[in-house]
């Protein structure tokens, strides 16, 4: 079950904690992986760790032209693109009263507009081949909101609406489009918190711990697999029970 042998997958933000875990999990299931991100050295290190079936495809998705070029590069390197994982994202947290237009626009550009452009470009080949998987990494805050993250919450909620619209457009072509909405995952970002802060966070999670990148990666493997072929337009919440949606 859940094998991805011979499939090609592009993972954006693969130099990060969640993206790296998704890349490793896909690779372990037999997929050819395209590793994208802005940090070339981290991508190269991951590619070296994985060995064969790994391609480094650097891209800065803040550049509107980068998305289309990235899909072309992925198709060039791997022959075609079966699975797109929109994982890259950034935050510019601050209370709305202090939020600059630039903070809003940067987050919307990278976290929502870039995924749309990547989907649009990837779908051309998928529609032709009558197969494909698109998985976007949303967030619990897209459903619940979070103070200081009006921009990020809007972008992540936007991914859900976009994915549901795309899911309906391409369902007849055997392509599924889904969202994974992680809760609090232990990454470099949460490592910066104090022990007390981490404990307070864990106390809000029924399953009693922060999530691991691997928890998200397992959900991504599932949605990418043939076994998930009857699931589209869905949001899979991976949050330890913190929000039961």
């Amino acid at each position, binding site marked *: 079950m859940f094998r991805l042998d011979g499939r090609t997958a592009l993972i954006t933000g693969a130099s990060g904690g969640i993206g790296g875990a998704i890349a490793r999990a896909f690779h372990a299931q037999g997929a050819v992986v395209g590793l994208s991100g802005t940090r070339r050295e981290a991508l190269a290190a991951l590619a070296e760790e994985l060995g064969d079936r790994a391609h480094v495809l650097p891209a800065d998705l803040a550049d509107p032209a980068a998305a289309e070029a990235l899909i072309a590069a992925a198709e060039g390197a791997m022959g075609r693109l079966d699975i797109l994982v929109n994982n890259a994202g950034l935050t510019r947290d601050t209370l709305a009263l202090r939020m600059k237009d630039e903070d809003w626009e940067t987050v919307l550009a990278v976290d929502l507009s870039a995924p749309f452009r990547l989907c649009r470009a990837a779908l*051309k080949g998928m*529609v*032709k081949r009558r197969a494909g998987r698109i998985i976007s990494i949303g967030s619990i805050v897209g459903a619940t909101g979070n103070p200081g993250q009006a921009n990020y919450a809007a972008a992540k909620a936007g991914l859900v609406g976009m994915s549901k619209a795309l899911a309906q*457009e*391409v369902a*007849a*072509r055997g392509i599924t489009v889904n969202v994974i909405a992680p809760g609090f995952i232990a990454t470099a970002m949460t490592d910066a918190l104090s022990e007390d802060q981490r404990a307070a966070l864990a106390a809000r999670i029924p399953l009693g711990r922060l999530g691991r990148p691997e928890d998200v990666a397992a959900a991504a493997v599932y949605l990418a697999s043939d076994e998930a072929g009857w699931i589209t337009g869905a949001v899979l919440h991976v949050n330890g029970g913190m929000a039961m949606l």
Partner: protein
Amino acid sequence: MTDTAEITKQVKEIVVEHLGVEESKVTENASFIDDLGADSLDTVELVMAFEEKFGIEIPDDAAEKITTVKDAIDYIVKQKAA
């Protein structure tokens, strides 16, 4: 072969390939949706295939009016003559 004849031939080839229909069904008056079983995504794919094949751009308002094989041929012939 005249340009129009060549364009007609290529348009029909694209339609046959994309929609997987019998060549004999692809008459000039055939409607993509009503006669050839296309859905709305098929029509978008056809327009994109025409754009690629003939090196032209078909804006959305023009694309909406291309509902039959003849519509496509006429539009492309006109664009190529311009």
